[in-house]
């Protein structure tokens, strides 16, 4: 499959997954409202059950989103056949972990892999390496895309696996800065370039 077509279907898949997460959120709103018949319900064990239930609904879609990102991010590093084998291997380990230790462990693993790969992509992008391929042209856009993807995986990893970690908030701010900077770089490459020229 051509890289262009591959990217197109990947974008459609990502769009559909994001839409599905939106639907899960709508369900959460309706369900919360339904449970609120008892005004004190959030003070009872029911609230914990509700949180677990909502997490259990959202995790599969997060996993799918990560798989889609998993296909999206390393495509910049690997050839397509290696990419498929790499994804299959990561997915295999994730599935095994889900069965052995639960979905949070599986998600944690895939997120850790994504962070590693995306950090490599970011470093190579920053160094203007020829070893990575991007759909879009332009150094700033590529840098923005790398920052954005890295920020997203860090934030999700932080929410899923590091909620009780003492560095939770510090990691949160790191992810937030990367995401926002990534957005600005991706959306306004021209202005960022002008700004950099001005600074130099």
């Amino acid at each position, binding site marked *: 499959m051509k890289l262009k077509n591959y990217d197109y279907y990947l974008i459609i898949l990502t769009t*559909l997954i994001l*839409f599905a*997460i*939106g639907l899960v*959120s*709508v369900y959460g*709103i309706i369900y*919360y409202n339904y449970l609120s018949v008892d005004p004190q319900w959030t003070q009872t064990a029911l609230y914990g059950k509700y949180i677990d239930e*909502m997490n259990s609904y959202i995790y599969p879609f997060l996993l799918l989103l990560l798989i889609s990102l998993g296909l999206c991010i390393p495509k910049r590093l690997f050839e397509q056949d290696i990419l498929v084998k790499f994804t299959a291997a990561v997915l295999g380990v994730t599935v095994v972990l889900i069965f052995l230790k639960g979905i949070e462990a599986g998600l944690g693993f895939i997120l850790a892999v994504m962070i590693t790969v995306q950090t490599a992509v970011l470093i190579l992008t920053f160094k203007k390496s020829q070893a990575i391929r991007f759909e879009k042209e332009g150094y700033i856009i590529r840098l923005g895309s790398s920052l954005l993807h890295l920020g997203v995986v860090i934030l999700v990893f932080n929410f899923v696996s590091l909620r009780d970690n003492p560095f939770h908030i510090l990691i949160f701010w790191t992810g937030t800065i990367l995401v*926002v900077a990534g957005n600005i770089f991706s959306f306004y490459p021209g202005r960022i370039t002008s700004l950099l020229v001005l600074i130099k």
Partner: protein
Amino acid sequence: MGFPEYLAARESLAVIGQPVITYILIISLLQGVLSLLYIINRKDEYYNYLIKFIYINTGLYVLGFIFLIWFHIQIYNTVLIEYPAVLRQMIPVDSSRFIIPLWIESEKLYFWAMAAFIFVLVMQRRKDIIAFIGVILSIFSGLIFFLSNPFKEPLPVVHSEITMWYSALGRGDGTIFQVAGTLYGRITYYYNSIYMWTHPPMLFIAYASLIITFAACVYMLIRRDKLYDEIAYRYAKPGYILLTAGMLIGYPWAIEAWKDSAWWWDPKISGSIMMWVLYSAYLHARIYANRDKMWSATAYLGIICFASLVLTYLLTYIVPGIHSVVQP
């Protein structure tokens, strides 16, 4: 300076603000009619009047906002909460003043509408989009006048808290400890919080920008012109950046202010997640807007995104939760 001065400032705001909001309503009605006339007949004459009315309305909104700023400064100057000695041993301050943000209670919709008017004036790219948004903003002004008027009984919750404080002071009984404790929490974690001064305004400015994206998506479907996709995208960009940053800033605030309270998967948070993922989906889909049926899918997605935005805003008023004013 004290309670009588605060009451006088509140009364003055109502007196000087009420005519402004009335003029906004009248001009908005005319603006709405002209917008509809332009949409139907597409005569430049209507548009020329329409844009003048939008300028006037923006000016009125800004004038009203200046009055609100003045009132908030008066609250700061006139109301001083001096904590009882026993409470001072438990908290790090001896006294507090209210630094009330300009986007709470009945001022929320006003702030959003004012930001949207400014965006429209900055844009002025396509007459048809301006006219379409002209209708939306007329509806906004009507809703503000009848349901969320910041000049009619200004800041009712803040007012009840200030009144409660001075009543307790006047009585001089034990309730003052409870009232002071409650106010300390409200002032520290809510009104004066740096998050309160960043999280909501970022979201409201994002909402204002995304109104233009919505209007452009509607016209994408009608006219099937690439220009509308470009306009939608141009305003989705700042909207999305502010939406992302604004939403994320809410997270450490929730941890700090709500601690172990039941806030995770609260309806407003679910709504915000829904809105953010839908806008992410829209931005992904529009990369290939020119392919197959992606054009209309992108436009419909942009419209659904805006519906989710309106729903998320309304959740505070229709569904119970920690963000909500509705009690179960």
